[in-house]
Each structure stands twice: as structure tokens, then as C-alpha cells.
């Protein structure tokens, strides 16, 4: 694989990652009020997918894996493979919290 200097992309990564986290938190808040809110689920799915992809490129595998889990859960719920309940909501919220902690660590190492 060609070597790419990724340091120059760190700021834009952090900036967009925070935007995706905000969108995920808004979606989770909306789902807490209405578990059938399809638009909120869809936004959660898109945000987790997008953050996963850019985290993979940057080599932030912990965040990529956490996002992959959120993406899988939201996709399963969207496709009616599974339903949403308190257990899933708690899993999703914990994952977003963990991503936030990881981002804070990355920011500190700048």
C-alpha cells in the first residue's frame, strides 16, 4: 500500500467525527422518545457508517469497531431483523460514550 501522510487530515477527521457524534446523540435522544422513529434510526445508521469509514482510513480501529457495531445494530433494526429495546438503547449509548472518550484521547495526542 502506498504510504500516505495522514497527520494533515487529523483536524478534519476530529471536526467531522464530532459532527457525527452529535448526530448520533440527537438520533438516540429521538429514539428514546419514540423507538419507531425511522428517520432517527436512518440518521444513526448513516452517521455510524460514515465515521467508521473515515476512522478505518485514519487507523483508529477502536472507533471503527464501535461504529461498525452501531451500524450493524441500527441496520438490523431498520431491516426488522431485530427490534429495539432498552438493552439495545443502552448498548448504543455506551458505544457512543466510548467513541467520545477515544476521540478525546486522539485530540490530546495532537
Amino acid at each position, binding site marked *: *500500500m502506498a504510504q500516505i501522510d495522514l497527520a494533515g487530515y487529523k483536524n*478534519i477527521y476530529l471536526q*467531522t467525527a464530532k459532527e457525527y457524534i452529535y448526530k448520533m446523540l440527537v438520533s438516540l435522544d429521538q429514539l428514546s422518545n419514540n423507538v419507531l422513529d425511522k428517520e432517527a434510526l436512518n440518521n444513526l445508521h448513516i452517521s455510524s457508517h*460514515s465515521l467508521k469509514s473515515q476512522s478505518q*482510513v485514519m487507523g483508529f480501529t477502536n472507533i471503527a469497531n464501535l461504529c461498525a457495531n452501531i451500524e450493524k445494530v441500527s441496520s438490523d433494526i431498520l431491516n426488522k431483523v431485530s427490534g429495539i429495546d432498552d438493552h439495545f438503547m443502552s448498548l448504543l449509548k455506551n458505544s457512543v460514550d466510548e467513541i467520545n472518550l477515544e476521540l478525546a484521547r486522539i485530540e490530546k495526542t495532537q
Partner: protein
Amino acid sequence: MKILLIEDDKFFQKFYSTKLQENKVEVEVAGDGEEGLMKMRDTKPDLVLLDLIMPKMDGFAVLAARQQDENLKKIPVIVFSTLGQEKDIDQAQKLGANGYINKGSFDFNSMVATINQVMKAN
């Protein structure tokens, strides 16, 4: 060569634009599917790099609209995928996508090889 990048993610917009421009490729960017279709018509790119999962109008809808338009059909389209999206790639290929690039494990040489392969075949 002129490439239209249809991608909603600002990180990837910057990442791909910079890498392609460094390699003397003219890059036009569209932030969603609707804008992408409009720019496909207006700027007549040699190739389109298309994200599949986007808000507003996703990549599948762009491919479906392209299939209905004789002029747009002539423009080759490479879709972005990530691991675990094999079903999406199948669906995109059924809708006429000419190739795909793995977004998560970025390899510029492999990307250039895919672009060249698709351009030669079209």
C-alpha cells in the same frame, strides 16, 4: 481527466480531492446525490466516484436515475464500498456501476488501477 466525486462526508471529500489533484486530476465535488446528478449533466466528467450511503439521495438512486438517461449512462461510475457492504456492491453493479473501491482500506495505487481499468473498458 476530470472526475466528479459525489460524497457527503467532508473528510473524504478533502481526502480524495487532495490525492487526485496531487496526481493532476481535475476534481469536481458534489455533496449529495441530487447535486451529483446535476453536476453529471452540467460538467460532463470523464468518470464519477460515487458514495452509496448518503442522506437526501443515496448512491443507488443516482445509479437508477443514470440508467434512465442515455447521456449519463455513457459516464462510467465507480462506487465506494466498505467491508461488510457486499450486498450493496451487488445491488450497485445490478444498477450499472462499473467498478468499486474499498473506502476503508485506502490504497491510492489500487484506486488508480481501478480507475484506469474502468476507463479502458468504457
